[in-house]
């Protein structure tokens, strides 16, 4: 098996739902040994979220869970019992990093504050991913994807000016935060090394990862300060040769304004429009009436004569920025991604064989590998507690009996 970038990193993963597991997924995907800890009664909530094959809910068949947790091992611990907490601290002694995404009051209330972990293992790094961070007036406030996207992120800027803002699809904000958590974990591994092995507590506040996000939010923080005003949601098609529009078999996005405008005319086969006074100068093209007229009279009729793939190719030939609005079927059918190896089939003992998104990053020397499917609930209890911590089968049976594992 080729060397992996993080082969020498051991991670104890107390996370659940999406943000934390996406962080530890990145670490596991690039080689870290990640032990995921779940509660014995039902485990991670994403086991109940689906999608499920044939829409039949089953805790071992959730597509979301199976995707987020491949390459991790799984154990169960009921951290409300003293026995389980003692076992957890035993595991803490054997890892480099603990990642958690509980509400900030939870870990201290379980006797698992950073200081407690540090007493067990002075080198341990604790990465905490939470809604609002470990300090501050909103520390204990409750939130979710839409709440954090609205407070920290760019939700106010998304949608039609005359309607309510409309959020990202799926759990985009939570996954962004998970990626930031993975980068933060790497940073802490480096500082630990330069400090002679002393760990530290890393605080990832999802609301801050949103406020600093380069999905236009951070640039807009600058723009607002430049002129002490905020701007409305942008009406679609408000700028020349730019926006999302219907075409013959779907929808496409085209960006052909600014200095690219002559290329957009080339794409349309209408170079003579450069002589039209409405479109002749950068200034005239910034006029909303002119840009709206151009889109309505020239761009949209042309788009309706072409398919998504035709528009995309013709646009690229003219060096106009463009892309189709794919749904999941169109994406799965696309040979570019299929032939590049974007998809991977994963066999799972209970869920069966399904096709998942594979590697997000191609590391030449230390490639992504599928080492194991997502764990069944408590699948590695015997391996981790038995072989790893030295509990015999009788003790494990007793711990099961008292609900600790």
């Amino acid at each position, binding site marked *: 098996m080729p*060397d992996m970038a993080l082969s020498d990193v051991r991670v104890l993963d107390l996370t659940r739902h999406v943000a934390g597991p996406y962080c530890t997924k*990145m670490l596991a995907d690039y080689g870290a040994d990640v032990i995921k800890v779940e509660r014995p009664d039902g485990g991670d909530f994403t086991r109940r*979220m689906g*999608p499920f094959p*044939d829409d039949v809910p089953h805790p071992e068949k959730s597509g979301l869970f199976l995707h987020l947790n491949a390459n991790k091992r799984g154990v169960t611990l009921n951290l409300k019992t003293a026995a389980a907490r003692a076992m957890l601290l035993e595991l803490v002694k054997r890892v480099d990093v603990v990642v958690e995404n509980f509400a900030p009051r939870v870990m201290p209330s379980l006797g698992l504050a950073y200081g407690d972990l540090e007493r067990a293992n002075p080198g341990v790094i604790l990465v905490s991913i939470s809604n*609002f961070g470990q*300090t501050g*007036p909103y520390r204990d*406030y409750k*939130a979710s994807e839409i709440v*954090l*996207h*609205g*407070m920290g992120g760019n939700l*106010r*800027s*998304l*949608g*039609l000016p005359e*309607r*309510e803002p409309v959020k990202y*699809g*799926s759990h985009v904000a939570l996954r962004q935060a998970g990626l*930031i958590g993975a980068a933060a974990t790497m*940073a*802490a*591994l*480096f*500082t630990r090394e*330069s*400090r002679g092995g002393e760990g*530290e507590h890393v*605080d990832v506040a999802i609301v801050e990862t949103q406020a600093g996000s*380069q999905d236009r939010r951070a*640039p807009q*923080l*600058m723009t*607002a*300060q*430049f*002129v002490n005003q*905020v701007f409305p949601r942008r009406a*679609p098609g408000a700028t020349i040769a730019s926006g*999302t529009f219907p075409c013959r078999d779907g929808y496409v996005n085209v*960006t052909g304004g600014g*200095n690219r405008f002559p290329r957009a005319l080339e794409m349309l086969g209408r170079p003579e429009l450069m002589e039209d006074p409405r479109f002749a100068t950068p*200034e005239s093209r910034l006029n*909303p009436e002119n840009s709206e007229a151009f889109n309505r009279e020239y761009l949209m009729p042309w788009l309706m004569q072409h398919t998504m793939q035709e528009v*995309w190719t013709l646009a690229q030939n003219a*060096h106009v920025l463009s892309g189709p*609005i794919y*749904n*999941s079927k169109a*994406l799965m059918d696309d*040979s*570019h991604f299929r032939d590049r190896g974007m998809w991977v089939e994963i066999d799972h003992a209970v869920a069966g064989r*399904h096709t998942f998104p594979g*590697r997000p990053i*191609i*590391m030449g020397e230390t490639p992504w590998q599928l080492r194991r499917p997502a764990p069944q609930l408590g699948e590695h209890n015997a391996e981790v507690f038995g072989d790893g911590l030295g509990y015999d089968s009788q003790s494990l049976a007793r711990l099961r009996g008292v609900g600790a594992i």
Partner: protein
Amino acid sequence: MSKLPLEGVRIVELTHIFAGPYATMHLADWGADLIRLETIQSLVLGTRGQHAKVSKEMIEQSKAAGTGAGVFPNWDPGPRPWNRSTSMTSTGRNKKSMTVDLLRAEGLEILGKLIAESDVFIENNVPETMDKLKITYDWLREWNPQIIMVRMPAFGLSGPYTNFRCLGMHVDGVSGHSFTRGYPDEEPHRRGETVAADAAAGASGAFAVMAALWHRRRTGKGQLIEMPLAENFIPFMAESIMDYNMNGRVRESMGNKDRWMAPHGVYPCRGEDKWITLAVGSDEEWQGLCEVMGDSELAVDPRFRDADARWRNQDALDPIIIEWTRRQDHREVFNRLQARGVPSGPILDELEVLEDPHMVNRGYYQPLDHAEMPTIKYHGPLWSMSRTPNPLRKSPPLLGEHNPYVYKEVMGVSDEEYARLEEEGHIGMDILETLSG
């Protein structure tokens, strides 16, 4: 005092617009000696604005359009508009800028000498652009066998789309994100665009660099990393992809609704364009909401008695809630809702979020002085570390600001040689087309 994690690591970047500069922002924030390769031959579109010369009329049109595009501090582009652009301002802090004309053989050799003194080269160009410049992984390795090269094109180094040009919004479209967000009662072109793929690429790019550095410190080996924006972002769409793969179902947008929670969404508040989000799941949260609304009848309404009933009857429930939220102040009611354990938050505009008491309390925003711009507040690093305090150090660099540092200190170029490179248009702080009239 703790060293920053990337102190002693030198990174050279040839990145543009959002994704690349955002990846290197994290690396610069956390201590890397981050050197941007720029040019004075012409304005490279995007990162330093759209135009090297900005006329009064263009400013007037930007004001009239009111979209937030083409904005400069106090609506004044100044003599060097490229030092005052929003894109550069939002990702440039803690970075250094050098200029060199890479289209000339001499410029390429300057880059080679810099690579010999560096650890990482990162770029987000269309692959054919890099081919034209002759900057390949093999070429970099001739200068530095341990170099780590990170390439972030939109669609990868192979395949039919390899040289397709696009921005984050097009990657959001191709990846399936644009289709799964928007108003369920409007057509897909009536929703506006998102550029979430750029943000995802920035975070992953920073992770990839650090993972490769971690591996190199153990093995001495550098490597080539390929991170297409689309392939890094597609896994964000796992739920809809897996529903298609498992059930052949194409998921459409649910707007602001949730698959389990109700009430869930964006609700109008008092004032113009003021909103609050609600994400109510449990019965406790629901009872908390009813209590803050002061509506004891709603609390016992059988249509909304449990999570399942609330979800099924959400179309009847939302108007009742809207009738109440319309009379509330979005920031004031948020604290009352949270006091009762209701997950909710005001939708904050940019000026509001800059003043948000929580983030101000955490010291998230920090002012930095800048030679050609007013002092403004910048957001802090995206995470904090208990034993590694990390205040922002330096405002975004002027074009070519660090030429003396890079050429003389890093590469050991003599004063005479420096003067010659200045003469020949490699080194400078003004874009040449603006000087020629």
